[in-house]
């Protein structure tokens, strides 16, 4: 270990997150490695190590001969200060080597608020933040993950973006990089080759041209790059790679357990939900395979908890079979099984009782909107009767802690919809009064609201976000009508939602704001300890950009959107139709009921959708 590091580590909080050396980490002999990849997560170790995508890509890339993939996370502020003081560049956990020793630096970006961390991590590594300032072939700096479905705000910083699932694409990219190194290709030559890989978006090959009013006139395609970059996905998800030997952190992380991935995609089609649109079509894994993967992972890690991951667990057809198979192993080994993402409409108390043998933790539901009209408008197929019935069963079963999540500012929302949230909470409270088996412990009903952020590649991508003042008015309206003792009301800040809305639907010019925020000290923006709204507002002003232009402006169908060169699978026409259905407060059937022909099936090369 670096001698300077030895002196620093005792001074910082939780030093174990900076040292590597965990069980199941992969160490390779540098002599036999010709491509070194730094898999970077632009947030702390505790968050990044909890991320299933990181575990999958780490495993997939390290399966390649001659390629060594290592992990890099953002240091917390105290560590960053010490590193900068001592002049220690950011290193990868496995080897302890600085990032400048690597051929490929790939960021996995799941949320926009991590953008400033990307710049900070590059800078901490002594690597120029802008693609144009990095002239050599290596290190090539790229990104993937959900946020890349609109690659434009970070276009100045990344050499390329991988759109969609990385399992195959990352391998192809690294093989190309190996060839480019051998053939002494220039960076420019490499990038134009990389653009030929399906799913690769090279920002320097797309040139945005703006109208006088600030909207996009067009995005020019240069040097024969594809007109449309289509998202990659794993067509045979059942048999695709799953990490049964994940790294076991030596210090506590956020999700410190085995995670099984049941399926990708979602049958529901909630109109606000980006994940529900950009991970289509639905692809499932066989329950027997999952049981085997679960047991193997538990044996290889020593974890005492296992959880199921998907966008809507209760929509996994063989859920009962899967849980029974896992419980056969878990119960005699005292391993806990937890089931997140259950829907209020087909919630099965039997299932919950089976998995929560000892303690009854809280139940969480996300009705998203207060009235049936608005729930229909957003295509959240949850009926009030179902939700209330579920709560009734839960109270009768001894649960006394219910959390309800809503969004304020959804398209077509009126004050009536806002107030209906408090009515719904009161109905739940009333149900507890009439149905609870044990009232001595009291009841806790928590209502949380966040401000709706319109996202790219959803039917609401053309929508205006309500402005901050209006959001705050709705919060106050709701708060004034939510005075019952057992009901706690929490609301999310308007500040971060506005910034998130700008970064989600921003164009390339927004990159200058991100850079300015970082230059004036911005980092770890998803942490309230670090986020500064004023810093962002100052940066917008300095860059001459208006955040409301991006967040609070309605777009027309014909407007050229910054992400229009990216095809996530669902056709824009379909999304526009869904938006119109919203304004009529009409439901679309879920994919299992009836295929709505969204267009994502075209990505499957003849494979089917398991909707």
């Amino acid at each position, binding site marked *: *270990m670096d001698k300077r590091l*030895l*002196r620093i*580590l*005792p001074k910082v909080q*939780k*030093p*174990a997150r*900076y*040292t*590597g*050396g*965990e*069980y199941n*980490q992969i160490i390779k002999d540098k002599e036999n490695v010709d491509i070194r990849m730094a898999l970077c997560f632009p947030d702390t170790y505790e968050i990044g190590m909890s991320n299933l995508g990181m575990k999958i890509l780490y495993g997939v890339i390290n399966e390649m001969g001659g390629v060594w993939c290592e992990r890099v996370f953002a240091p917390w502020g105290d560590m960053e200060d010490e590193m900068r003081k001592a002049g220690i560049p950011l290193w990868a956990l496995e080897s302890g080597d600085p990032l400048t020793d690597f051929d490929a630096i790939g960021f996995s970006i799941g949320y926009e608020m991590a953008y400033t961390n990307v710049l900070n991590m590059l800078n901490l590594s002594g690597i120029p933040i802008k693609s144009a300032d990095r002239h050599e072939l290596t290190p090539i700096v790229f990104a993937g993950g959900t946020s890349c479905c609109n690659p434009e705000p970070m276009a100045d910083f990344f050499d390329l973006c991988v759109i969609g699932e990385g399992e195959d694409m990352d391998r192809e990219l690294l093989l190309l990089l190996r060839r480019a190194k051998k053939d002494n290709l220039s960076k420019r030559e490499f990038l134009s080759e990389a653009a030929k890989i399906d799913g690769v978006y090279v920002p320097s090959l797309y040139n945005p041209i703006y109208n006088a009013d600030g909207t996009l006139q067009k995005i020019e395609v240069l040097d024969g790059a594809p007109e449309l970059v289509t998202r990659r996905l794993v067509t045979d998800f059942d048999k695709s790679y799953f990490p049964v030997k994940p790294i*076991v952190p*030596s*210090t*506590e992380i956020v999700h410190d357990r085995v995670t099984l991935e049941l399926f990708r995609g979602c049958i529901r089609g909630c109109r606000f939900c980006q994940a529900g649109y950009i991970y289509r079509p639905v692809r499932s894994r066989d329950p027997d395979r999952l049981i085997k993967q679960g047991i193997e992972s*538990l*044996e*290889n*890690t*020593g*974890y*005492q908890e296992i959880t199921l991951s998907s966008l809507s667990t209760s929509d996994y057809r063989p859920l009962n079979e899967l849980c029974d198979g896992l419980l056969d192993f878990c119960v005699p*080994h*005292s391993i806990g099984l937890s089931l997140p993402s259950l829907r209020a409409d087909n919630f099965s108390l039997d299932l919950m009782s089976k998995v929560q043998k*000892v303690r009854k933790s809280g139940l969480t539901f996300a009705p998203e909107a207060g009235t049936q009209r608005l729930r229909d408008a957003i295509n959240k197929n949850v009926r009030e009767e179902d939700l209330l019935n579920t709560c009734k069963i839960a109270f009768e079963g001894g649960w006394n802690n219910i959390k309800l999540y809503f969004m304020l500012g959804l398209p077509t929302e009126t004050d009536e919809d806002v107030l209906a949230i408090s009515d719904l909470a009161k109905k739940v409270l009333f149900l507890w009064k009439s149905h609870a088996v044990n009232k001595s412990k009291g009841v806790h009903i928590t209502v949380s609201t966040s401000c709706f952020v319109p996202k790219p590649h959803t039917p609401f991508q053309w929508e205006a976000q309500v402005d901050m003042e209006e959001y705050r008015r709705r919060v106050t309206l709701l708060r004034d009508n939510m005075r019952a003792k057992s009901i706690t009301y929490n609301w999310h800040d308007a500040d971060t939602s506005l910034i998130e809305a700008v970064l989600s639907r921003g164009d390339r010019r927004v990159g200058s704001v991100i850079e300015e925020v970082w230059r004036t000290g911005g980092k770890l923006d998803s942490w309230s300890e670090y986020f500064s709204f004023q810093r962002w507002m100052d940066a917008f002003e300095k860059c001459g950009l208006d955040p409301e232009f991006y967040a609070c402006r309605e777009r027309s169908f014909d407007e050229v959107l910054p992400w229009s060169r990216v095809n996530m699978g669902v056709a824009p026409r379909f999304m526009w139709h869904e938006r119109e259905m919203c304004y009529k407060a009409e439901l679309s059937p879920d994919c299992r009921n009836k295929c709505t022909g969204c267009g994502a099936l075209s990505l499957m090369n003849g494979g089917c959708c398991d909707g």
Partner: protein
Amino acid sequence: MDNLRLRFSKTGRAVYISHLDLMRTMQRAFLRAGLQLKYSEGFNPHAQISFALPLSVGMASYCELMDFKLNDYISLAQIPLRLKKVLPEGISVLEVYEREQKFKNIKWLDVDGSFEYDERSASDILPELMDFFSRDSIVIQKKTKSGMGEADIAESIRSITFDEGDGRIRLKAIISAQDPTLNPELLVSALKQLSPQLAPDFAIFTRTQIYDSEMNVFR
């Protein structure tokens, strides 16, 4: 199987694993080894393991002890073989045996230390350091449960020697492990408080051996 004791070392990158994290790390390693630790009864069952002398973060050790109980019988020789394969980097099994004495009989501790000086010469400081620690009484301020208190650490130092090499000062000390506990870091605190000119810019310690009150090696 009750009354089992594991002796292990914790060095290298593993020295940054905190005491709490070590408990979790060990429990997981046992599960990976297919060894079922015995759990307590009750509402919130926990593995019945205990460590002899909690080790500060950053300090290495070649003499850590952990007591544990297993549900099933297994030959003693098998346990280290199985554990060896499943421990994180820096934690190594030294031996597993049936314990004969309780942790409360531990009294003394061997520590090796290294003092680094950035601006000052180690050889100039060496004699003064020796002088300092040969005092009969070294009274320092230290944090206690009820605020700040005074303690004479001299009586907790059974022996201490210094020598110089590679531009740093190496120390070997036998200090009190329990009743009272002397954290080796307090040797540096004492210098900072009483003779700041002798305090090193960086100090690092390693535990090498533990003893009972008669200076027999404790196992």
